[in-house]
């Protein structure tokens, strides 16, 4: 089997294990390429049946508008249920507090909303598109990653994961995060998207955009960034390598408007994918700390 077939077959098997082992699973859908890939894999795992889980999107309210409209169209075209958890609701309820200042971001608040959404619907498994090549804490996480009642990941209490046997047994209140594309790299995802002709939000491809230069990177010049006259705003040809909250997702300058060029650009790129995410740069252990707190 070709490597993409091998990775695909593994991911499908993991999704079917989720269906078989859990009462109320959910697929966490961000509108990014990884979760869009998961949707295609779910089609491969369950069609002609329906998905045994809804898509769940945690919306910071600062997402790219292109991502939001793509999300809604995709859910409609595949005929599956979409549940949206709004960070704004958590802020209104006082469970999340908006950050202040110029670098304020709602990225960290997602953790609150995701835990509230899990509790509200009683989800016992949440499928996510995280990959082990993204970051060194992720490199050690299991495919079935058990979280306690507070959504916390304890790296020292991870279950051994042998062969292709996944133990999803949990106590009430706990849940499992499941990562079917753990073993894929960024390039694998792109090559798969190309092979499967999967549609993506337009922001992945080069386009003219007003950007602001902050902390050494270009950010979309959106209202959420609190731009003032000191900021260096310009219009450039850019594209995004990851699609997260607008306040923490940086653009890369690029002329690449089709997938072949993007694959070439990525394979030659000298900055890793998460290098374009400001949220990992806080400290050497940034991702590990956020995971322990219940983030993806």
């Amino acid at each position, binding site marked *: 089997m070709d490597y993409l077939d091998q990775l695909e077959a593994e991911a499908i098997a993991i999704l079917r294990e989720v269906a078989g082992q859990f009462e109320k699973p959910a697929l966490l859908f961000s509108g990014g390429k990884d979760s869009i890939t998961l949707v295609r894999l779910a089609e491969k795992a369950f*069609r002609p049946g329906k998905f045994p889980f809804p898509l769940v999107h945690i919306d910071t309210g600062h997402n790219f508008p292109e991502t939001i409209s793509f999300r809604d169209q995709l859910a409609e075209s595949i005929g599956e249920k979409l549940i949206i958890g709004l960070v704004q609701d958590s802020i209104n309820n006082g469970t999340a507090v908006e950050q202040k200042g110029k670098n304020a971001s709602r990225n960290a608040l997602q953790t609150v909303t995701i835990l509230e959404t899990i509790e509200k619907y009683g989800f016992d498994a949440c499928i996510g598109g995280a990959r082990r090549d993204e970051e060194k804490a992720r490199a050690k996480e299991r495919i079935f990653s058990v979280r306690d009642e507070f959504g916390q990941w304890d790296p020292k209490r*991870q279950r*051994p994961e042998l062969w292709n046997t996944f133990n999803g047994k949990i106590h009430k209140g706990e849940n499992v995060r499941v990562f079917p594309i753990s073993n894929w790299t960024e390039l694998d995802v792109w090559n798969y998207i190309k092979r499967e002709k999967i549609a993506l939000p337009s922001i992945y491809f080069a386009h003219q955009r007003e950007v602001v230069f902050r902390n050494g990177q270009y950010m979309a010049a959106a209202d959420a960034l609190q731009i003032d006259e000191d900021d260096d705003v310009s219009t450039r040809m850019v594209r995004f390598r990851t699609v997260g909250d607008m306040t923490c997702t940086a653009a890369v300058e690029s002329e690449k408007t089709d997938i072949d060029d993007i694959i070439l650009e990525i394979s030659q790129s000298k900055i890793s994918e998460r290098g374009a995410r400001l949220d990992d740069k806080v400290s050497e252990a940034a991702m590990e700390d956020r995971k322990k707190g219940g983030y993806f």
Partner: protein
Amino acid sequence: MDILKFLTAGSVDDGKSTLIGRLLYDTNSVLADQMEAIKNSNRKNDDGTVDLAILTDGLKAEREQGITIDVAYKYFQTDKRKFIIADTPGHIQYTRNMVTGASNADLAIILIDARKGVIEQTIRHSYLVSLLALKHVVVCVNKMDMVDFSQYVFEEIKVSYLKMASQLKLNEITFIPVSALRGDNIVNTSLNMPWYTGKVLLEHLETVEVAENNQMLPARFPVQWVIRPQTDELHDYRGYAGRVASGTFKVNDEVTVYPSGTKSQITKIEVFGGELSEAVQGASVTIHLQDNLDISRGDLLALSKTAPTVANRIEADICWMDTKPLDTSIMYLIQHHSKVTKCKITDILYKVNINTLEKINTHDLGLNDIGRVEIKTADELAFDPYELNKNNGGAIIIDGRTNVTVGALMLRAGV
């Protein structure tokens, strides 16, 4: 292009992290921002060069202690192959992590420090590799720079390793003299060891054959999920979704369903958007049968002409993975593919001293212990002896009180 999954066994002292770092570095698999993060770190080699071992450190505690605690997965590729490295810790207190890493690997790299030769740890690692039935072993004799790149030292180690390995069931053993720190014979041919004419490590990894005998294995298909849309247009649709554990299934093959023992014929092998004439090992497919049988998750389809062992009293090797010792008086759960049933570990036949390979009579198995046990299961399991078909011979033990995976089983035979 295919994927090779390999395991690295050894400790920091043997230069294991440096070896992996070297593979990543010399294949240009380290990206600029990762490299920057390493350069900004305080850890440097004695000569001031970047400490490549940092590339494999993950968790805070590991960085603090300078050791590997858990299995870390690393990815790189060349023009020939994609590689998944399971970087596992070498200390005896992390035996369970090495067993975990080995369970999904095709090949193991065993590191020997050229100054120390075959030591207790080498025996332990080699034993685990044979226990988990990995097909290929590469013995990297590392730190050759510390022994003046001596061919004599290398040959001596080779002889003593082969003598030790004769007690184990290891298939194919390849020896390579390397210096991970300096990069000799990892990706580039060493100029310091002209006497070595074999392949360098990367070339060996790129060319070793891993899928050769898969088609010879008996065909096994654990059912994970039954697809029944129950819509008007798909009223009678009933497909068995799963992944081929071993062997090949073809349309028209006669299959037996376990544990019921009923037989039927494959009418269709479906994938999203199409049909296949055959499903090979590792493929995720949906199988349709001629007859309307009562088949559910946990059942196993097997080609009728090659029956599995069906038993509820089973002898198995076990690696115990929990801090609470094995308790022969309580009920556990056993999970074999998608099948979960209750079980009791009725007898501990012996424990293996994995540093010396001695068998010890005992009634106790604790964390990281390996031994031979007898199990009694509530439902029968349909399995193959692990050494013949590891894809249908491994199972896990779950403690129903904590839900934690507490043991790994290599099923050997019905009793």
